[in-house]
């Protein structure tokens, strides 16, 4: 009984019967209509959900026969697993969407009901002509529902849609009949079985007509202007169902007919790729919310159009399920949610979305939807893309990976830009959006995304519950958002200590050391967050996610876990930077570079998996000589994330413009994750002989970064920017140390990591204290603070000494180790650069102390006091760390060395020398003394140069007359030596991208007739590209 009541055929009985009866219910009363309507939708949802449940438990696909006969005589339908996912997804969305529709007249309700039924018909039917009928049902319902908005532009857009889709469905009709003429079959399964008999000009034209219709209904670039216009002007709930539901039906039609298009698979994917890249490119230039969503919708469907034929060609059935299902569900829930949100906000222009700024709940949902649509974890799109890329790599389809990732990056760019616009506090409090109940379905979509994301993650192979610990902690904190700030911060610290400890307990070796370092460093620096008592909506949950993700990264065993946690860190730190709305543009830059970096890692892992057939990170250790590409990809990604010279442009803005405590976290702690990645990734380099040369390149990049960073730091007038560049410079040392690929190099790297963490933590907190007390950031406006902030001055001085590499503090040991390791390896060039960079480092560090703490007081306020205790405690703890490292170096070096030993024990690189031998091999004092002397000589020389007036002549810079102080002179030199090439390069790239987007979108003239002409040409292009010329001019 239950079986027959929940049989999928009943979807159609309920849909049609309900639709026909709605006018009768209307005569019974208005509430009857709404009740019957919702009941019918709920019944369809239940039926499809039950089918999904049964099929997931291994039942055979459910055949639906009609007309009392078997196919091919009668029309049959099928509810398989894929069908049930699509049907259930669409039904769920439709049920939630009923909240917006139910208040309309009964005509709208019956159209909506039949539309939802029609989409499922498209999904389930196995008869080609029946597919056409359902396509028409869906189309006509769409045309009618679009009439709900009667603004002139909406009417025009609908008419364009009408013209285009009527043309497209005529193609379908012609194709179906021509196919019948060629084969005498309408049943899809039989057609597929008789694929080989579809030949000749008629068979070929039939296939192209069918394909053209399906692709056109998915709105391919450039024949999609009509679709965009409709997305822009339609009522948002109608646009939502078009984007999520109608596209789903059409796409499923394409999916089930794919076996017919065996000769055109690649062509379909190419057309999908063109649409994917161009729609996301033009999306960059959009200023209207719904049009933007339109471009994104088209892009998402195009991504599916790329994935499906390629996976079909690769015969990757298992992957197809996760990829197509995941991408579809992700697009469905996220896009529908965004469209509904657009309706709720009711603002056309993106700038006006600032009305959301003071509504943390809505912002959270908006954030979830944006993250999901960008294909980031923990949502289904992420797992699907992961699986897609892995599968493509296994099939050697690397170009496709690049296309998918480029398009995704573009999409993330405009999506997150939109998000940051919504965070800008409005100048004046706008009228609040009305109707809180309208938010309910949007929240529903966010929840569905979370749930489906979890399931997809499990499917993709992320079984480890610990990986979700950061998110769980974030959720807990979100629940506690009503507590006072300090309390929340304390809870974060407690949760993170407990959770973090449990995360790292099972670790050992390098991973344990890093996890320990990241966890402890994060906790100590985060104490500074207590200094702010103001409510910071969203801050503490994000902080919890971030702090727990850090120690979770070394726990990752597979590349999937690694990327997952990596993206969590990226996202949480991005949102933390975004907490300060002034930092929005820098945060976006940070995010985009981070995503690009992650994409390189993804590629590296994909190649690795294709080579070793393993997703385990340990595959990195056994990879052979072919793995040079893996190393190069990993290194590029990690160097971007580390802010190496050339790709450092994101770094100063993000570090300098974030909230002060976030800056400290970014520079001291988060920057180390890329270093951890490098350590993990360089196994491959050691294994593959080729990569050792690449390692030298990496070493040079590291040293250039150090030098450029130091010079850029010395040029800065802004306190935090100076520290930001200093951070870049210090990371350069670490990169170079890792690049040494030797035991000593790695010991050095870890030592430097610890040192930099301590030092930069202190210095950014010092900056925070200074900004808090004086409200000023420009170094020239500060001065003489040593007297009023003695403790801060002391910690700053200790940190500076430790960083500069002067004895007796830890930096000295670090520099010494680095120079020793370079000399050991014979890297004299980089060693020389180390010396040079040390000299430049002295300049800015001296200035930091001199200009801020010594010198004359410039700050007008007299009532300056010492920094608050909450800022001092973490500094003092970090100072204690410095002392510990400085005076008991073995405490750190011994475990480091021990942890590293296994990696090198079996290689030629490590000569088997014990640590003591190295200690004795190089006497540190002379080396450092030499470094100091060289610096002094250089400075002296420069001073002479300046004095004599030669310099002005050489540099052709007018200094003499003005303020020819030593610093000004140096600044001029550094400015000359660090031309803004990188800025120019990336800025130019961005300008070129937006300019091309601007030009390309001129294709969309807005004229419906022109759009129809595009459609004809699209068909012709398809015909020719599919190989149709041979039918026009038969050669035989």
């Amino acid at each position, binding site marked *: 009984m239950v079986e027959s009541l929940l049989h999928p055929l009943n979807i159609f009985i309920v849909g049609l019967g309900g639709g026909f009866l709605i006018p009768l219910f209307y005569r019974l009363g208005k509430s009857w209509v709404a009740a019957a309507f919702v009941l019918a939708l709920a019944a369809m949802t239940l039926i499809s959900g039950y089918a999904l449940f049964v099929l997931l438990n291994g039942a055979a696909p459910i055949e639906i026969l009609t007309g009392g006969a078997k196919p091919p005589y009668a029309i049959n339908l099928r509810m398989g697993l894929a069908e049930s996912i699509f049907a259930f997804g669409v039904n769920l969305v439709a049920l939630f969407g009923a909240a917006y529709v139910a208040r309309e007249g009964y005509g709208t309700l019956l159209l909506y009901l039949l539309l939802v039924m029609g989409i499922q018909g498209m999904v389930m039917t196995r008869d080609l*002509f029946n597919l056409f*009928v359902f396509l*028409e049902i869906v*189309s*006509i319902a769409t*045309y*009618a529902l679009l*009439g709900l908005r*009667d603004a*002139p*532009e909406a*009417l*025009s*857009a*609908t*008419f*364009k849609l*009408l*013209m285009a889709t*009527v*043309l497209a469905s*005529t193609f379908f*009709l*012609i194709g*179906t*009949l*021509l196919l*019948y*003429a060629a084969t005498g079959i*309408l049943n899809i399964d039989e057609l597929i079985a008789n694929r080989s008999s579809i030949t000749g000009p008629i068979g070929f034209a039939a296939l192209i007509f069918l394909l053209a219709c399906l692709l056109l209904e998915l709105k391919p670039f450039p024949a999609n*202007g009509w679709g*965009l*216009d409709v997305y*822009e*002007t339609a009522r948002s709930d109608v646009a939502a169902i078009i984007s999520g539901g109608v596209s789903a039906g059409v796409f499923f039609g394409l999916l089930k007919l794919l076996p017919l298009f065996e000769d055109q698979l690649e062509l379909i994917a190419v057309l999908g790729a063109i649409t994917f890249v161009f729609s996301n490119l033009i999306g960059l*230039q959009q200023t209207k919310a719904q*049009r933007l969503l339109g471009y994104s919708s088209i892009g998402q469907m195009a991504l599916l159009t790329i994935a499906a034929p390629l996976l079909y060609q690769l015969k990757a059935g298992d992957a197809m399920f996760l990829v197509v299902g995941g991408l579809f569900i992700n697009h469905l829930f996220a896009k529908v949610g965004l469209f509904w949100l657009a309706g709720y906000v009711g603002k056309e222009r993106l700038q006006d979305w600032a009305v959301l700024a003071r509504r943390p709940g809505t912002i959270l949902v908006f954030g979830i939807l944006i993250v999901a649509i960008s294909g980031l974890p923990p949502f289904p799109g992420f797992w699907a893309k992961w699986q897609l890329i892995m599968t493509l790599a296994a099939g050697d389809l690397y170009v496709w990976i690049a296309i998918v990732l480029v398009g995704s990056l573009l999409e993330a760019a405009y999506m997150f830009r939109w998000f940051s616009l919504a965070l800008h506090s409005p100048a004046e409090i706008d009228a609040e959006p009305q109707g809180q109940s309208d938010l309910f379905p949007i929240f529903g979509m966010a929840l569905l995304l979370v749930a489906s994301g979890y399931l997809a993650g499990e499917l993709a192979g992320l079984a480890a519950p610990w990986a979700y610990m950061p998110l769980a902690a974030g959720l807990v904190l979100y629940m506690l958002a009503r507590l006072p700030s300090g309390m929340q911060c304390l809870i974060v610290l407690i949760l993170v200590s407990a959770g973090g400890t449990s995360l790292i307990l099972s670790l050992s070796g390098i991973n344990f050391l890093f996890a320990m370092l990241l966890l402890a460093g994060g906790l100590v620096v985060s104490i500074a967050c207590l200094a702010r008592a103001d409510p910071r909506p969203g801050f503490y949950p994000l902080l919890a996610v971030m702090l727990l993700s850090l120690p979770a990264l070394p726990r990752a065993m597979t590349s999937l876990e690694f990327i997952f946690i990596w993206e969590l860190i990226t996202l949480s730190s991005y949102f933390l930077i975004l907490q300060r709305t002034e930092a929005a543009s820098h945060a976006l830059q940070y995010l985009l570079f981070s995503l690009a970096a992650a994409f390189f890692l993804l590629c590296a892992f994909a190649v690795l998996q294709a080579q070793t057939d393993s997703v385990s990170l340990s595959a990195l250790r056994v990879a052979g000589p072919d793995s040079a590409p893996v190393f190069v990809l990993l290194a590029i990604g990690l160097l971007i994330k580390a802010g190496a010279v050339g790709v450092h442009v994101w770094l100063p803005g993000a570090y300098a413009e974030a909230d002060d405590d976030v800056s400290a976290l970014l520079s001291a702690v988060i920057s180390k994750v890329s270093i951890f990645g490098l350590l993990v990734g360089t196994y491959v380099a050691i294994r593959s002989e080729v990569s050792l040369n690449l390692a030298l390149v990496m070493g040079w990049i590291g040293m250039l970064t150090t030098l450029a960073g130091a010079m850029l730091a010395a040029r800065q007038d802004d306190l935090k920017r100076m520290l930001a560049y200093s951070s870049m410079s210090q990371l350069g040392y670490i990169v170079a140390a890792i690049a040494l690929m030797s035991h000593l190099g790695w010991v050095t790297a870890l030592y430097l990591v610890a040192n930099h963490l301590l030092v930069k933590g202190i210095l950014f907190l010092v900056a925070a204290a200074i900004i808090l007390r004086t409200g000023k950031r420009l170094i020239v406006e500060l001065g003489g603070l040593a007297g009023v902030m003695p403790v801060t001055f002391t910690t700053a001085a200790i940190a500076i000494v430790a960083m500069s590499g002067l004895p007796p503090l830890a930096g000295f040991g670090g520099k010494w180790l680095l120079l020793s390791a370079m000399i050991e390896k014979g890297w004299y060039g980089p060693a020389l650069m180390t010396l040079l960079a040390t000299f430049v480092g002295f300049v800015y560090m001296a200035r930091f102390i001199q200009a801020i703490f010594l010198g004359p007081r410039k700050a007008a306020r007299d009532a300056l006091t010492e920094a608050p205790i909450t800022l001092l405690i973490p500094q003092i703890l970090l100072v204690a760390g410095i002392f510990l490292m400085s005076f008991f170096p073995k405490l750190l070096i011994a475990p480091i060395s021990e942890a590293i030993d296994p990696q090198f024990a079996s290689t030629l690189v490590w000569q088997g020398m014990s640590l003591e031998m190295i200690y004795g091999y190089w006497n540190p004092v002379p080396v450092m003394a030499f470094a100091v002397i060289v610096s002094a000589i250089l400075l002296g020389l420069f001073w002479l140069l300046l004095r004599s007036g030669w310099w002005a002549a050489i540099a052709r810079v007018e200094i003499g007359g003005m303020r020819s102080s030593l610093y000004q002179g140096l600044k001029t030199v550094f400015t000359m030596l660090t031309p803004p090439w990188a800025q120019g390069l990336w800025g130019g790239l961005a300008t070129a991208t937006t300019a091309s987007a601007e030009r390309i*979108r*001129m294709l*969309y*003239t*807005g*004229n*419906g*007739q022109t759009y*129809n*002409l595009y459609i*004809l040409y699209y068909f012709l292009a398809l015909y020719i590209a599919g190989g149709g010329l041979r039918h026009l001019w038969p050669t035989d």
Partner: protein
Amino acid sequence: MISSIVLTTGLLLILIGLWGMLTHRNILRIVIGFSLMGTGTHIVIVAIGYVANGTAPIIDHALSLSEAASRAVDPIPSALAVTAIVIGMAVTAVMLAYAIRLYEAKRTLSIDAFTESKW
């Protein structure tokens, strides 16, 4: 032979419809273009179903049950044509309804006047 003539007629009608919808500015004429294209398609359908020397697949005194298989035309395209005609009519009705609304909005039927959204 007969079916080729009908097929050509249908295809020509489609071409004429396409030409009309692309060259005429008046929305009503564009709708007529679509209708022509639709009619052409229906003719093509009928042409496809034709069997040499066949008659309508209706069993009566003119066509006995035993000889039906050899003398009837293909019934499937005819059945599909019925559906296609109804759907074509439905679409035309919707187009005309929108044409009325467009005229009311702008007091013109020129397709060039309806380019509000673009890019």
